[in-house]
């Protein structure tokens, strides 16, 4: 399969993840959509790295995984703190900064 196929699949998954971030109001689902976007970027890295016969893109994927793991811990901690404060994970309830 040529590289274009992989890149288009990565692009579609990235767009779906972005759609999820924009349209959902559930904090947990938004977090999962973010993970989708991370993974689409990873697939792009691996595909281009494979096409160019390099390894650097694959190394970068490992670092993206590290960042995603750290982000998961922090984001879910925020979700729990938010739930404890408001009794829900609806992001529309987070309006204290609104004038």
């Amino acid at each position: 399969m040529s590289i274009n196929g992989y890149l288009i699949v990565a692009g579609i998954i990235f767009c779906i993840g972005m759609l999820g971030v924009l349209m959902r109001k559930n904090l947990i689902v938004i977090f999962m959509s973010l993970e989708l976007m991370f993974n689409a970027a990873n697939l792009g890295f691996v595909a281009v790295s494979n096409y160019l016969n390099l390894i650097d893109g694959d190394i970068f994927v490992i670092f993206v995984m590290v960042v995603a793991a750290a982000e998961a811990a922090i984001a879910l901690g925020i979700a729990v703190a938010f739930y404890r404060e408001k009794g829900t994970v609806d992001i529309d309830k987070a309006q204290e900064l609104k004038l």
Partner: protein
Amino acid sequence: MEALFYVFSIIAVFSALMVISMKNPLTSALYLVLCFFALAGFYVLLDMQFLAAMQILVYAGAIMVLVVLIIMLLNLSKIKKIKMDLHQVFIAMVIFIILLVEITIYILNGSLKKPTGIYTHALINKIGNTQILGEFLFTKYIFPFEVASVFLLVAIIGAYLFAKKKY
């Protein structure tokens, strides 16, 4: 190979759509695991079996277990009642379609430069992808590797602070 690529892409795109459209976050989480498995299949097709294993262990294993655990801690029947705003969905759809068309046009019309590296399919399979990744990680990318460990420590402290009752 060709057939496997289409199978994996259909699974990945379908499960990604399911992740964002399901009402129950637990269903979304399970579809996300399916999507991660399909992406691991892509990595195997691209000669990176080690990354496929990492994808399944770290993402489908560790991160998704964390997500499911948090969903368990929250009140599921209350979460399921969160409604989507139709106006917001419409705007999101418009942005989605514009971005999708844009990305597709750029990918189909763009041109990549010729391959420059030496790590071809044959060489990676001869040495072994895990050994190559390890050599790169501990020689050329040793500084980012060490920074990543400090970064994980910061994340541990941050998660502890957020989970505490009073800040």
